[in-house]
């Protein structure tokens, strides 16, 4: 049950616990929200620093705080995108499983009488 490149994801094996993956997606969404809130705080700081100092130092300090905010937003955005991916993956697997179950049921009903 090993593959050279990745021992925990061996080739040919596909398995999922949708609820657990959805929970991971929720954690990623939470992480994204927290970092977004901090990005907002950085942006507020960016506005305050030129007021506190004025001049070049104030401008420079404020601009850097804006950069902090932008960096936070990039990370938060990526975390949000991954959160959506995880949630979608859980939903898709669930839906696909339901579809397979329905298909198998229909096939069984169709095949049943013919076999008699």
């Amino acid at each position, binding site marked *: 049950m090993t593959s050279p490149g*990745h021992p*925990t*994801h*061996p080739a040919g*094996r*596909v*398995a*999922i*616990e949708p609820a*657990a*993956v959805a929970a*991971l997606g929720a*954690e*990623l969404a939470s*992480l994204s929200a*927290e*970092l977004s809130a*901090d990005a907002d*705080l*950085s942006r*507020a*700081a960016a506005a*305050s*620093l030129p*007021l*506190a*100092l*004025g*001049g*070049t*130092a*104030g*401008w*420079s*300090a404020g*601009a*850097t*705080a*804006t*950069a*902090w905010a*932008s*960096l*936070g937003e*990039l*990370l938060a*955005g*990526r*975390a949000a995108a*991954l959160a959506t*991916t*995880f949630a979608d*993956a859980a939903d898709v697997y669930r839906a696909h499983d339901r579809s397979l179950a329905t298909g198998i049921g229909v096939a069984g009903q169709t095949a049943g009488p013919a076999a008699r």
Partner: protein
Amino acid sequence: MTVPAPAPGGTTAALAAIAHWDVPLLRRTVALLAGVAERLSPWRARLQGVGRVVDSGETWCGPAARTAAEAVTELAAVAWAVDDAVARSLAAYRRLVDEAGLAHELAVVGLRGAGDVPATAGALLAGSGVDAPALFAAEEALDHARRAAAAAEEAGSVLSGLGVHDAFVPARFDDLAAELPLVGPVPVPRVPSGGSPADVAGWWADLGPAAQRAAIAWAPDAVGALEGVPAWARDQANRRLLDRALRDPDLPDDLAATAAVVARTIAVEEAAGEEVQLQLLDLPGDRVALGLGNLDTADAVGVLVPGILTTPADDLGKLTRHARAVRDAARAAAPGLAVATVAWLGYRTPSSLPTAAFRLQAERGGVALASALAGMDAGRTATGNGPVRTTVVAHSYGTVVVDEAADAPGDLDADAVVLLGSPGMQGDAGALEAPEVYDAASPADPVSWMRWFGSTTWADGFGSTHLPADPGTGHSEYLDADRPTLSAVGEVLAGARQPA
């Protein structure tokens, strides 16, 4: 974006501008930024936690899962780089606060005493005989203002490694990731050999994900035993050691036997659906610690410290079952509480009754226990998790180990201590440095009234809260399922039982 020009009007105008700086606002704002920066490290630690779960393949396995794991790992690596740069940026902001504060104070003094200030203090001294201290203050103010400006500049320039130039940040995450050398050889970090668990936790938190993996891969013996490293990482390191031991044909028989017992115990627990974390594997030292549950994220942790004649080879299975029983009792006391327990054989217990009469093993074990408790606390900090309720459940000679642990430098990192069948303690309950101290003793347990090592824990003068114990409870039966002591210990672990 344009940079505002310096204030016109020469030195006096510059001083006036500095004197108008709102330093309290600056302090508040940088404190706010400090909060943002300090939350980033635990943030990425939690993100790494998500990555580890996906990477394990336990909940999601296959090509899509692998791609997802890589994406989370990449985000964690970028977050580490941002965290590192922001921490250096914050250091510059803090210098800015210090320098701006000094500049402001001195500028006020300079303006008050010097009136119209010429370009330099030297020029003024040569001519006018104006207030010399004020002039020096003015010159110092300008100097500190220059340092403040340099610090403000540096707060931004240290972000250049992220592709941030003139405050412009890469437009997309992929552009930001492309700025960072995420792929390629990772130097193996030097694992610290000294330092407190808190120092170790700080060192670990500062490593990037790739460097953490490198440390686990290349120095598992050091990482696996290092107090302050998060439980997940110690588990990975010690499992590598275990795997290596199981495949070593030259390993002495007794060590191989212990390794086999550890592997078997882990397999049994995992087959039963338990999350197992191997926290210590010191085969030559005959020491093992096995966690049930997630020690990094649990709300409550119980550490079981056994007494004499207990070895990993002979008793790990039994101690682990006790750890599971205590964990289950805590869950029963507080449904929904995340509980983890540790079967802690982190000291070599006395191997005979004559050696058990001395404190030597307890002294060594006490130092190890105190360090392990501090390490667990610090490791949680490194993973960005909040405080945990920690209970030490010690049995027999293990209570003497707790006694010695409390004597180690610093306070014992435990919220509660439970003493079961103690052969006596040196001081009273207060000396154990834990806010809550409980005991259980029974008339059928002769050890509990032997006073081999000091006061009996059930005596009123000792000051502990008594837990229920059947009169017929034998020395090794406190944690048996049919005894009332077990559920009471579970309540202590969960924080559901208040001390008297």
